[in-house]
């Protein structure tokens, strides 16, 4: 029985019914990884260890809720004794001595980490084209990008290789690739999942989350990924609900906000048409739509491109060639060691963001840029606070269009930055948001974004699940509709 394209829920049933053994599941997963090697979705595989774990589960019943489920981990999470590159030459030889809390949580639940997925270098990119390890191919088309930065994770799930992957989202890095690859992805509330052991890009925006075929699977993963962690001072110490509990409850009376300031007229007709159809579908499920105003939302992208580079330039100063990672050959003194190591180790986009960060943080510009951006960030958050007094969730397209061709955004970085127009606001405000497949443009999937109120992931997942049990967009695969 093939395991390709199976959801977590389906695989759990197959394992429970002994339709398949743990070892067979992992063996077939690695076969699928190898048959799809042209996607370049993985940087490092963990085959021997995975088979060992599967064999153990076959001999001693596992107790975790996700026992034996194969998962692909974004190569941004530290994994003990397994190479972790963050998509960069700088960490091409880095083998962490510990695992990130979220990796530990997933593995304690029984997940088997089959490999580390390709990504934009240090998560800086929206097309996976900035990876030192080469582009990832979108399973939906040879020259199409999978989105980014969690492009390898999205491609691995979309190709049906694994039912689950971890991702991280600083400005849309889970939701945008989920949209472009036709899968479901959730960025939880900032602080919901521990950041300990995640290689930091922009600490006040970074958040890990699940990527899977369905909202229901995202809920199963989220249940295990969340925990309060003393090692992360921004980890939220609030009760963690069972995110699967309300999935099947009706959304009759759900109030959905539509953002007046999102100008959809600039999008492709097809995207607008698909969005309108999704609205109608939600209406048929009993939801009502309310127009809301987020007056400062148009400033999200420029705000982000001050805050994120500033935090990045500070976070990435740790890569100095002294304690771990790459070091240049034969430096003549300490300063040359720093400069040569960093210049050789980082790619162009990472350098560009470090430079912008150093500029906006430098004496004389700090108030004009960094402080100003933080003030606008508060205005954006205040806008959301007011809007959520009248609505339960906010809905928009996830992306401006479907997957684009590699190289097609030219060499103007701002064109690529605008790719995250709809996703960035939720990161600035720290709100949970997810993307679910809601249509196809020229045989390429696109996604619908749902933004929730603080800590209200349950409602997002409920709204997404209600959509998915009454539509079949999430069942489409690059090799045809799933039976």
């Amino acid at each position, binding site marked *: 029985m093939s395991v390709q394209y199976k959801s977590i829920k389906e695989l759990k049933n197959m394992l429970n019914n002994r339709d398949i053994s743990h070892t067979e599941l992992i063996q077939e997963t690695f076969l699928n990884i190898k048959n799809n090697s042209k996607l370049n979705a993985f940087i490092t595989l963990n085959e021997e260890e995975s088979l060992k774990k599967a064999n153990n589960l076959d001999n001693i019943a596992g107790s975790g809720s996700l026992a034996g489920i194969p998962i692909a981990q974004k190569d941004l999470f530290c994994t003990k004794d397994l190479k972790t590159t963050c998509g960069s030459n700088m960490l091409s030889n880095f083998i962490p*001595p510990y695992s990130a809390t979220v990796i530990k949580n997933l593995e304690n639940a029984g997940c088997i980490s089959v490999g580390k997925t390709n990504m934009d270098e240090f998560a800086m990119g929206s097309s996976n084209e900035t990876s030192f390890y080469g582009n990832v191919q979108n399973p939906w088309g040879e020259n199409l990008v999978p989105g980014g930065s969690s492009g390898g994770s999205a491609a691995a799930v979309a190709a049906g290789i694994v039912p689950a992957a971890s991702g991280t989202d600083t400005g849309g890095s889970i939701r945008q690739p989920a949209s472009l690859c036709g899968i479901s992805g959730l960025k939880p509330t900032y602080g919901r999942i521990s950041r300990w052991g995640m290689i930091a890009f922009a600490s006040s925006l970074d958040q890990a989350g699940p990527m899977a075929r369905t909202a229901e699977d995202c809920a199963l993963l989220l249940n295990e990924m969340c925990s309060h962690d003393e090692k992360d001072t921004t980890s939220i110490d609030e009760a963690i609900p069972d995110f699967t509990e309300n999935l099947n409850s009706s959304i009759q009376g759900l109030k959905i906000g539509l953002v007046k300031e999102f100008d959809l007229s600039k999008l492709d007709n097809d995207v607008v048409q698909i969005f309108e159809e999704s609205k109608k579908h939600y209406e048929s499920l009993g939801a009502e739509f309310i127009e809301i105003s987020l007056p400062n939302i148009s400033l999200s992208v420029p705000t982000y491109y001050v805050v994120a580079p500033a935090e990045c330039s500070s976070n990435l100063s740790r890569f100095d*060639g002294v304690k771990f990672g790459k070091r240049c050959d034969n430096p003549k003194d300490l300063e040359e060691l720093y400069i040569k190591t960093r210049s050789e180790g980082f790619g162009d986009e990472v350098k560009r963001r470090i430079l912008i960060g150093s500029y906006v943080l430098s004496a004389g510009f700090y108030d004009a840029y960094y402080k*100003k951006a933080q003030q606008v960030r508060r205005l954006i958050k205040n806008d959301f606070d007011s809007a959520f007094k009248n609505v339960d969730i906010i809905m928009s397209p996830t992306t401006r269009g479907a997957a684009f061709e590699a190289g097609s955004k030219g060499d103007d970085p701002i064109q690529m930055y605008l790719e995250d127009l709809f996703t960035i606001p939720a990161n600035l405000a720290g709100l949970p948001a997810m993307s679910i497949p809601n249509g196809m443009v020229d045989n390429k999937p696109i996604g619908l974004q749902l933004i929730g109120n603080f800590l209200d992931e349950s409602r997002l997942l409920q709204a997404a699940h209600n959509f998915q049990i009454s539509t079949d967009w999430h069942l489409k695969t690059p090799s045809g509709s799933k039976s």
Partner: protein
Amino acid sequence: MDKKTVSTIAYLSRLSLYGENEDKITKDLENIIKFVDQLDQVDTENIEPLASPLEKTAKTRTDNITAKNRKEVFLERSPKSNDDYFLVPRVVE
């Protein structure tokens, strides 16, 4: 943004920009700064900056030693080290 500013911030970032890239990088940075300059139009007087969406002060805990000394594990990941230290080129002659 001129080349001198770019070379100053490159030095602050401990990055060297090679000749062929310098014009392109200067132009890109100029465009990005121009793009973020639209923030200037917003009236933010008396608006408190928002540094993190949580706005909570870091939680404190009792200062117990929880980590084991794993000096060897960390030193062996260094590009160059001896039994006790990370090694770098000589700083003081």
